[in-house]
């Protein structure tokens, strides 16, 4: 029988995933790996990991990786890419990492037009530390540090990173996708491929924001989390290509 699908070799075979049931980090990790293999980039790849659940994959992925100080992934990636332009350098960061503690590094790297690719995982909450409020937490959404839910009077509103970066001149590609349906998973893969191709073409800064779930800290099962994405996250974070130059 013809084999039409195989697990990506970029995830080590003997490793057991530490991600929670329903977590989408594994899905995005798989997509990145498949794209790297399809584009024959595995031996050029350097993944710059953020701190938080996003960093858990350091133990699983089979290509070069470096753990950045919390929020500094875009600065670390700048150093790697500038000193080794032949590498395919991408960051993999959550919302706390990319949009809160690393806001200066993220915006500045985008503003310099660094020739790197950013995979930004937005699930509206801090995962690893146990469900604290993120800059992307929805209004009314409960978090361990906003026990009555995010209140705009006290906490402001969710931050839209694609739109924030769209104010800058230098970035070439900004797209928001999700992994809540098979169709959206396919679109996410396509977006990752585009972000990597842009880097190969020397075009500059690309970011794919992936709206994902955190069933554990959202306090719901994996299937309900999918509904929550559709009903609550996506109206706040609409999917689509924000910029493609």
């Amino acid at each position, binding site marked *: 029988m013809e084999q039409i699908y195989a697990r990506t070799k970029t995830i080590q075979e003997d490793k057991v995933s530490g991600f929670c049931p329903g977590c989408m980090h594994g899905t995005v990790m798989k997509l990145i790996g498949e794209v790297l293999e399809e584009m024959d980039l595995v031996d050029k790849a350097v993944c710059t990991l953020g701190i938080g659940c996003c960093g858990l994959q350091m133990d699983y992925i089979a290509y*070069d990786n470096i753990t950045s100080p919390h929020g500094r992934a875009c600065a*670390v990636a700048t150093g790697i890419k500038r000193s080794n332009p032949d590498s395919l350098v991408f960051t993999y960061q959550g919302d706390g990492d990319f949009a809160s503690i690393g806001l*200066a590094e993220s915006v*500045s790297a985008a503003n310099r037009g660094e020739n790197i690719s950013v995979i930004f995982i937005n699930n509206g909450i801090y995962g690893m530390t146990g469900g604290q409020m993120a800059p992307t937490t929805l209004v009314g959404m409960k978090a361990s540090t906003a026990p009555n839910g995010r209140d705009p009077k006290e906490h402001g509103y969710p931050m839209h990173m694609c739109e924030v970066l769209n104010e800058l001149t230098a970035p070439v590609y900004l797209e928001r996708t999700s992994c809540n349906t098979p169709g959206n998973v396919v679109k996410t893969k396509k977006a990752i491929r585009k972000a990597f191709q842009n880097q190969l073409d020397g075009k500059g800064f690309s970011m794919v924001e992936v709206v994902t779930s955190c069933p554990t800290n959202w306090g719901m099962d994996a299937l309900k989390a999918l509904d929550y994405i559709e009903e609550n996250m996506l109206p706040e974070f609409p999917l689509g290509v924000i910029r493609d130059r």
Partner: protein
Amino acid sequence: MSRVFMKGCEAIAEAAVRAGCRFFAGYPITPQNEIPEYFARRMPEVSGTFVQGESEVASISMVYGAASAGTRAMTSSSSPGIALKSEGISYCAAARIPMVYSNISRGGPGVGSIQPAQMDYLQATKASGNGGFEMMVFAPASVQEAVDMTYKAFDYADRDRNPVLILADGVIGTMMEPVVLPEMKTEEEINEIKNAKKVWSCTGHKLDYKNRAWIEPGHWLTSDMQRANEEAEKLYESWKADVMVEEYETEDAEVVITAYGISARIAKSAVNILRKEGIKAGLIRPITLHPFPYDSFDKLDYKKVKAVLDVEMSIPAQFVQDVEIAIKDRCPIHTCLCSGGNIMSRESIIEAVRKIYS
């Protein structure tokens, strides 16, 4: 080798370029702005990279990235900026990433003063970030020494896979002196250095689970973390062989001055004047602050030594804490201090020694 007249900061930058440094990221802060400015001009000439980071925090992270990719990399700042860099310095030490940075230190604490000071001694030698890591720390007393140390620092960093600190002060950084610059490393030499790091550096590897580069500034398993700490400890112990110190007129000395950096240079001229007066003064000048030259203090003849005079530009005194460990109560320790950006005066040192002597 040519002799040129250069400002300390610029000479440090040129020495780094000659040592094969091909990546520099930094953020403006007085009194070290000439370092990033020099690199901004110089790096394009040698196909290197200069990035003005958005902050000190970002700059050290860029250096962490570049050095993790095998490139000789450097950053620089001054006291409050160095405090901000402590995050990335700790990451480099944890992940065993070789890099060099300089602190052209100024008065403190807080934003302090922009004038020269030696108020970062304990931060530099004991705790430059979280987690109890250690680094070799060099303290130049002239522009020439700053050049030589910076050049060598990259070799030590690569040998140990560990950060190295050049702790200078605003005097060394902004003073102009004649210097002999070291040989410029050739492109072949620089490539050879980079290629030697291929095994562990983040430059991309063939798909092979065992051979990927994995830069780990921490560990999930406590057993792995402890093992990394133990390996680091072995490295730190090995530095005893790398101690550098200047012992000046100490053999028959009755008053031994001890100082580092610019204070030591001023103290040395005080020793010469005191000797002419018939006062048997001497000087112990640690060149490496870490490892500290404890042996030099053991060699003193405590039947002759009336006291040791600690001279430093810090109030309260900090360097004196290591001097106390070195002296082990074998003689009294006096201090001669200034701080806040005031530069040590030779007269105050001479006065302090005369007082002890009488």
